[in-house]
């Protein structure tokens, strides 16, 4: 059995089917890109796996255990951490305190949590901002802080929801380098991105969602040439151009 599997995962909102019978596998040590046009159901899929939504049908298995319908906090304890598309930093806590909240999961004693959080700040290059209040950080730092906070829970799998959105090209490069480094250290990573160009050079395998369904699951090279994928993205581009005139 793979590290993480979903079988026929389905989520509906009223009449809208956001995720339709998604079968997904994730092996230990993989770096998978999950892409798709806006509204393809990527974040819904994330929320179903990480416990924020309860899927209507289908099951989620993590390390062979059925974790369907577990609460987010229990999922996190089991070893799946995530970040959010719209950053959710604890604004009136300092950077160090933000990361300590994550570190407390495996280190209940404050001194141990602090030590662990400081180590995580070191690896994510945030040490110099440790005592700065998080609310005032620029977006690139808040995204990085969210990543650091998730890392502090010592997860086995890390789900990054649009970790690069809103960053400038230089910042994207740094973020890409950091993701690659974490992966090389043995972390299993799923990267949700709207922008294909970010994922392609980084991921080993790319899964494409469109209208809540998996339309491709292959290497980046082959996915990029897949006519259905091109159509999905082109359709979106045409739609956007038509909308913007």
């Amino acid at each position, binding site marked *: 059995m793979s590290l993480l599997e979903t079988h026929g995962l389905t989520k509906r909102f009223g009449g809208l089917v956001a995720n339709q019978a998604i079968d997904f596998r994730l092996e230990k040590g993989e770096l998978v890109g999950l892409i798709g046009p806006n509204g393809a159901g990527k974040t819904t899929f994330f929320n179903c796996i990480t416990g924020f939504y309860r899927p209507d049908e289908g099951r989620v298995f993590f390390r062979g255990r059925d974790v369907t319908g577990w609460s987010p906090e229990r999922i996190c304890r089991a070893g799946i951490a995530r970040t959010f598309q719209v950053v*959710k930093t604890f604004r009136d806590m300092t950077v160090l305190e933000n990361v300590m*909240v994550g570190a407390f999961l495996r280190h209940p004693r404050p001194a141990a949590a602090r030590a662990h959080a400081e180590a995580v700040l070191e690896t994510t290059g945030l040490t110099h901002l440790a005592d700065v209040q998080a609310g005032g950080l620029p977006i690139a730092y808040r995204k990085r802080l969210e990543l650091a906070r998730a890392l502090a829970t010592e997860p086995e799998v890390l789900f990054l929801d*649009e970790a690069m959105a809103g960053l400038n090209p230089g910042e994207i490069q740094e973020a890409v380098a950091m993701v690659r480094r974490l992966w090389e250290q043995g972390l299993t990573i799923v990267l949700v991105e709207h922008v294909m160009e970010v994922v392609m050079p980084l991921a080993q395998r790319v899964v494409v969602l469109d209208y809540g369904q998996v339309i491709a699951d292959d290497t980046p090279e082959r996915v990029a040439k897949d006519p259905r994928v091109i159509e999905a993205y082109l359709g979106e581009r045409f739609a956007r151009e038509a909308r913007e005139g």
Partner: protein
Amino acid sequence: MQSVSRQGQEPRSGPWWTRRWVQWGGGILLLIFLLLFPYLFPRPFLRRMAILVLLWSLLGLAWNIIGGYGGQVSLGHAVFFGLGAYTSSILLERWQVSPWLGMLAGAAVAAIAALLIGWPTFRLQGHYFAIATIAAGEIFAILFRNWEWAGGAVGIYLPLIRGDQLVNFQFHETKVPYYYIVLVMALLAVAVTYALERSRAGYYLRALRADQDAARSLGVPITRYKLIAMVISAVLTAIGGTFYAQFVLYISPNTVFALMLSVQMCLVAVLGGLGTIAGPIIGAMVLIPMAEYTRVFLGGRGGGLHLVVYGLLIVIISVFQPAGLVGLLRRRTRPTPPPAMPTPAEEGIA
């Protein structure tokens, strides 16, 4: 990104009042002052005022644990105060149980009530939670008003015990023992808050106050920690309730289960500054003398003119200093974050 690193902040370079030795020194001086207060200012009016300030510091600190640190705005805390007051008073009146034991029993009853109220209402957020706690508070007020066995709307006159001994928790010759008792209680609340602030629970509460989803994603069982905070808060509030009953020697649903009481607990904490130890104490030190003096100067003519002024002052404070009095200091003590860089999209695309 490198551009920011040179602006890295040296954390301990705040103004003088943020230095640790200044804070500790100030705290010790304040403690000595508080210990000597009854002898420095022997006037009964001031002594009574000091007792009220300490009682309200205790209540504000208690409220602050769930409302300030946990961010759950409860407007029903009078329930815990009332249960503390009623439990010890009934035990004393009916079965001559020592108020000290009654205080422990009241704290236990309040803790159970905290779980019963918190369990359904902690799924609610913002105004829904506030209104739900008002509803819970009103249910208790109505029930006690109509519970004849517990004195009904008239309430309970506590039996007087002469002799002024500590075990009796009643003092008629001088009010000084009350002062020291409530001082110890307030210090207990400070100690509890201090410990909480540094514990995992303290971090978790501040995290869930800022963002519940983010907290959950980091493995924080939010309902459990809200309940823990609510129980601690309720226990401290109930202790205050027992003290009040023993100090005033008369309780009634309209005095100990009043919505105004809940609101004032919250107000003391908000006025001083939420989520800080000093906040509720400063709030009580400002609000209670303000209320007492306006009562003395304006209340004599009857009709509640002092409350007109009190209401107006609350409006003025919330308009001009919404962050509380501690906010005045803090604005300058927290290190300022690096200036925002120009980014294409501030919050990412939702």
